[in-house]
């Protein structure tokens, strides 16, 4: 039988506010346990939540970015359950009236034809604001559990997609696109190691052509794109196997173990909580004024999809280049900043250097683009020298290497290291004459019809100029000389 996979993702994005969603405590990561938990966060008797407007503003921003409906009145509700890292015994979340409903994100998925991609639209169900829980620490306490409430009350925007994805690859493409978007608009720092972007995947399979969905299982808390892909792939194989062996899939929540590459059951629907949601009487319904929404809209940066289209249209870049340059806002900004200095005519050259040498060096040194030792001005300077013929590609790489390791401006490096391409025909001719005089055998072989001998002569000239001669010019002049 042919099976079809159906995937929907729920992504918890931690918002970039400095303080918590309902208290003034800091959200900074990595502090001493419980040093960033104030009386509201530890739920002392009598304390009350006060909504952080910054969190609402970020949710508005996200809603605008995905073309969603913003609920002008949205409501915080209590989700009741007991757990030691949930100090109030309920989580303040949104249930019936979330702040964001609908919207969509376009993803690029590989098409049937190799090397091609096609655009697919993933619809979003909703995005709602909520507070994070604390952490239970099971190590270091010898049979006891430690509770760290620093994370309790950290603002989250939970983004729920429709079950629109049909493979692990599509799920990863969606997760990446979402990651790009939320970091692009600055609502989330996207740090997956620190848990700022956590993915739950709802996975089911059904016979190809069947309309109804199969029974889904939810894989919780995937904190890398690689694990997301591995977990879904495993889960899909497991579910198909189960069904083919005559078993039924039971709705359940599962965990992915990266060590074994397998998913394992956490709980079934039978032991699911009744969360007893009801509107939180401590918080008034949130009202979004039109003015506020318009202010947020006005401050919105150009979004990756728009920028991608613009790069293709205005600079003639390929879809591949445009997608690569807009995969991260800092990269796109680096590109446009460099272009402003290097001239739009050099767009392709700048794109090549950014996605080639610069990206490779960043990867090698495990640096983000923000930490690159080369800035847009330096790269623009380098590109200009390539464009005007001062540097060959080979020499440019040498200059780049110096800039990367030692710093400095390209012109100064070219000067100091004598890396300027030799384009003075008089000087090149003089060297050619010397090479021809010193290699009569090669000259003879060339005249006898051996093309290889010509290349040997070019090599000699380049060697004599320490690689600085303009190779095109050498070819030209040598041909003339030999013909003469």
């Amino acid at each position, binding site marked *: 039988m042919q099976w079809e996979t159906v995937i929907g993702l729920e992504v918890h994005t931690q918002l970039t506010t400095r303080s918590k969603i309902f208290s003034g405590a800091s959200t900074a990561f990595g502090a001493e346990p419980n040093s960033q938990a104030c*009386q509201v966060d*530890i*739920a*002392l*008797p*009598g*304390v*009350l*939540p*006060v*909504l952080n407007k910054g969190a609402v503003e970020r949710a508005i921003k996200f809603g605008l970015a995905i073309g969603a409906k913003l609920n002008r009145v949205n409501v915080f509700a*209590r989700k*009741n359950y*007991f757990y*030691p890292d949930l*100090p*109030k*015994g*309920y989580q303040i979340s949104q249930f019936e009236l979330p702040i964001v409903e609908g919207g969509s994100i376009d993803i690029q998925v590989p098409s049937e034809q190799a090397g091609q991609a096609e655009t697919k639209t993933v619809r979003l169900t909703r995005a709602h604001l909520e507070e994070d829980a604390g952490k239970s620490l099971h190590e270091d306490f010898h049979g006891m*559990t430690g*509770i760290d409430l620093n994370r309790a009350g950290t603002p989250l925007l939970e983004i729920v997609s429709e079950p629109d994805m049909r493979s692990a690859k599509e799920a990863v493409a969606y997760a990446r696109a979402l990651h790009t978007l939320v970091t692009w608009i600055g609502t989330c720092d996207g740090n997956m190691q620190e848990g700022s972007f956590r993915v739950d995947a709802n996975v089911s399979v059904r016979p190809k052509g069947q309309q109804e969905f199969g029974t889904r299982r939810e894989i919780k808390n995937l904190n890398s794109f690689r694990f997301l892909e591995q977990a879904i792939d495993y889960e899909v194989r497991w579910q198909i196997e189960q069904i083919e062996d005559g078993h039924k899939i039971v709705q359940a929540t599962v965990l992915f173990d990266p060590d074994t590459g397998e998913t394992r059951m956490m709980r079934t629907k039978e032991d699911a909580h*009744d969360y*007893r*949601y*009801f509107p939180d*009487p*401590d*918080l*008034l319904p949130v009202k979004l004024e039109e003015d506020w929404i318009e202010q947020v809209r006005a401050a919105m940066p150009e979004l990756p999809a728009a920028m991608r289209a613009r790069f293709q249209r205005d600079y003639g870049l390929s879809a591949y280049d445009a997608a690569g340059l807009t995969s991260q806002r800092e990269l796109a900004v680096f590109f446009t900043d460099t272009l402003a200095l290097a001239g739009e005519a050099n767009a392709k050259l700048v794109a090549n250097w950014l996605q080639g040498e610069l990206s490779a060096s960043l990867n090698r040194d495990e640096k983000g683009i923000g930490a690159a030792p080369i800035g847009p001005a330096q790269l623009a300077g380098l590109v200009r020298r390539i464009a005007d013929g001062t540097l060959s590609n080979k020499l440019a790489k040498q200059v780049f290497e110096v800039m990367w390791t030692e710093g400095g401006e390209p012109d100064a490096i070219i000067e100091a290291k004598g890396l300027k391409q030799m384009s003075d025909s008089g000087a090149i001719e003089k060297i050619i004459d010397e090479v021809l005089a010193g290699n009569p055998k090669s000259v003879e072989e060339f005249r006898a019809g051996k093309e290889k001998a010509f290349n040997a002569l070019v090599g000699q000239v380049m060697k004599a100029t320490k690689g600085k001669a303009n190779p095109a010019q050498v070819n030209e002049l040598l041909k003339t000389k030999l013909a003469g």
Partner: protein
Amino acid sequence: MTQHTIKELADLLASGQSSSVELCQDYLGRIAAHNPDINAFITVDPDRTLADARAADALRAAGNAGPLTGVPIAHKDIFCAEGWLTTCGSKMLANFVSPYDAHVISQFKAAGMPTLGKTNMDEFAMGSSNETSYFGPVKNPWDTARVPGGSSGGSAACVAAGLAPAATGTDTGGSIRQPAALCGITGLKPTYGVVSRYGMIAFASSLDQGGPMARTAEDCALLLNVMAGFDRRDSTSLERDKEDYGRDLAKPLAGLRIGLPREFFGAGLTGDTAKAVQAAIEQFRTLGATTVEVSLPNSGLSVAAYYVIAPAEASSNLSRFDGVRYGYRTPDYGDLTDMYEKSRAEGFGAEVKRRILIGTYVLSHGYYDAYYIQAQKLRRLIAQDFAEAYRQCDVILGPTAPTTAFKLGEKADDPVQMYLSDIYTIAVNLAGLPGMSLPCGFDSQGLPIGMQLIGDYFAEARMLNVAHQYQLATDWHARTPAL
């Protein structure tokens, strides 16, 4: 000395006839003498009180005294007060020393008013007789075999007995007004949102409101001036201009239109209470007021709606008492679930558990629409009834409670009878309106009777005016029990 009003004490301090230390020592002496019989206080800490008093005297000496600086006050043990044991009447918090001040407490501190102690109350404010307190029942100073009402029973009893000139209370379904009535004092529940709930341990968040309990309406006005005000830490606190709640006290009542709800004067109201309230109505007519019959057709459903909404919110509000971070934790437990179950089973009393169970039930999947949503609809209808009534009148008058103080133990085993103690007060909380109780007579057994005034939103100053004019013309409020 100890039967003075706040106003009189403020005058004594201002004229230099007494110091705050002397006043506090006097009250502390009476507490030491009589609290063992009344049990109005859970915590008394003379050192702290006298330190407050000395600070108040120093403020006055430096010329920085406010109108009430140095006047002591007792606080219901539901208000978190830094350094004070704050129990909420529960074993669950019997060991909880608050590390911070409730907004109300910091307001009184800023006014320079020493804390006389923390008053006894029904556990987590759930009760109408003060019998659910982990720290034992409070006795009514008029007859110590009887209850003082609840849940602010300790506050009402200590004022009635002259152990404190005034006290704070909280009112979720009548918890200021009903004990004020049963103890013969004056108590006011403000419009929801006028007094910050920050630091006031939550029972039912959408209904809870703090307010003053004192000997007179004039004192309540002075105290409300201190308590009221916007607090950004409470999202339901209302951002309004500061007002002087005593500004209309002297206004004559000519032209006042008093609404008398048909439903409050039906078969349930009998005997001495009915007579006393009727007499009060006559008194108001003498003072120039007119009366008009109004109707609150949905008020009969208020107790039912209340016993869905209040337990629902309480079941969630009380989830934080889990034995993990503070408060009671069972000494012996196996796993986490065992710890939760035992800590909560041992830490909460029967009435609290009953309400948590009711609240959990009405919020459960499949029951939510039938109970909680319906109750919220009723709540809107009840508020509409009042809005309709206020088209015809300025203030509504009726009884505060169906009976005078009942005997200890009399209703303890009959929760429904107990719940009906608040039949006249609950609708006010559901609508979020201000309400107050003031003495209007005594029954044949010498027990005080209270009448209730209900104002439109933010009509506290008008209600206090009405009550004050009544108290100028009568002396029910000035009578005190023999201890």
